[in-house]
């Protein structure tokens, strides 16, 4: 489990996170949603140590990440997989080399074991046989899948996904969502997804945290988000007339 306790973060004079606390349980897909500029990416980046928090604690299964030195943090980071918004694949390496990279850096696997692991990860994301492609030769959806394959290569306990569906068509977005959900359930990973995508909220949101003005404004799941009367949630999730109609129809059904 990942726990965030009373986290505050300031950039210069501007406070971005205000006393945020939340728990992210293993084997569940935890979503952090919110409008742009409200602090959700800062929260996620603070959780993995790309930003230092001003106060508060980040706990990985009880281990206080915020108070660790560099070497202890490096150990925790080997338990973290991350899928970046733009995939962040190393563009000078092939798909296979990208997935092999963390294995060659941090494990004592033989070449054969590494190759088996790469093939397994590629098969898991339905990209078998694409080992020799370079990221520039892959479509956006393929890049995301390679990103997931690289993220799970080290058998992570924690998986962070930063807007995994941005720039993807709806059909591919569903494929990526399903993949994230399946991997989370299959391996019991603590998964945290930052997203704007309401399809993702409805499809995979086991636990949904709404960040607004740097604060945790609301917490629930994909079912309770439909019935909540929280005005900020309504304004964000059901902003369009289409979504409002869907919501009222769903509410009717629930009644």
């Amino acid at each position: 489990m990942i726990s965030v306790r009373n986290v505050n973060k300031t950039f210069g004079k501007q406070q971005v996170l205000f006393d945020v606390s939340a728990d992210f349980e293993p084997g569940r897909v935890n979503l952090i949603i919110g409008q742009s500029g409200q602090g959700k990416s800062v929260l996620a980046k603070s959780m993995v140590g790309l930003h230092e928090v001003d106060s508060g604690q980040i706990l990985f299964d009880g281990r206080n990440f915020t108070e660790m030195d560099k070497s202890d943090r490096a150990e925790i980071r080997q338990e973290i997989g991350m899928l970046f918004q733009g995939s962040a694949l190393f563009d000078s390496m092939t798909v296979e080399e990208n997935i092999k990279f963390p294995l060659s850096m941090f494990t004592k696997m033989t070449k054969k074991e590494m190759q088996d692991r790469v093939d397994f990860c590629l098969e898991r994301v339905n990209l078998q046989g694409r080992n020799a492609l370079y990221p520039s030769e892959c479509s956006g959806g393929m890049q995301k899948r390679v990103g997931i394959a690289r993220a799970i290569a080290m058998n992570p306990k924690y998986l962070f996904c930063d807007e995994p569906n941005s720039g993807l068509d709806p059909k591919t977005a569903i494929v990526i969502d399903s993949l994230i959900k399946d991997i989370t359930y299959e391996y019991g990973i603590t998964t945290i997804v930052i997203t704007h995508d309401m399809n993702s909220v409805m499809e995979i949101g086991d636990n949904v945290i709404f960040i607004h003005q740097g604060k945790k404004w609301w917490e629930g799941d994909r079912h309770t988000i439909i019935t909540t009367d929280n005005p900020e949630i309504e304004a964000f999730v059901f902003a369009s007339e289409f979504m409002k109609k869907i919501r009222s129809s769903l509410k009717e059904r629930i009644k």
Partner: protein
Amino acid sequence: MDEVQYIGINSIPIVALMSTFIGAVISLQTASNMDSPLLPDYTVGYITQSSVILEFSPTIISLILAGKVGSNIASEIGTMRITEQIDALEIMGVNSLNHLILPKVLAAVVYFPVLVIFSMILAMIGGFIALVVSDLQSTETYVLGLRSFFDVSNITYALTKTVAFGFIIVSIYVKGGSLDVGKASTKSVVVSSVVILIANFIITKLMLL
């Protein structure tokens, strides 16, 4: 090995071109200004040798490499920053500074001196072509000039400067590259050129005077 290719081998054509032509021009200009009968003919070869070893090859070639290699490094690192590849390294627990910069520093420190020695040889050949082929001087006189007052410590001085310049170029470009790619590349070329010239003055003062 990629870094050697990138920093060393890929720079050979520009270094060869610049060195040959500048060597030719140095010798021609020296010859055209040597009209005093008191100066021996071999002075042209001697001045070409001294200019090339002491200043042209280590300093001017380093300034050229600052533009070529340095801006490439700035673009590469800057692009990696923007596309979150450096964040990806950090998340994996990889020290991005060691992983990305150290091989470049090593390649620069090892291969810049090789390029500079190559430049010295080509510049002197350039001078030879300009003078001898144009029939301005005999081969024997030019070679005598090149060998006159030759001091090995000048080579040591030149290579010491080159190692320092190689380190400056890689370090400054890397630092600048993490910001905005285009802006950082331009700024880095200017900053490292200025730092090279200041370092050149300091090293010259320390080693020769």
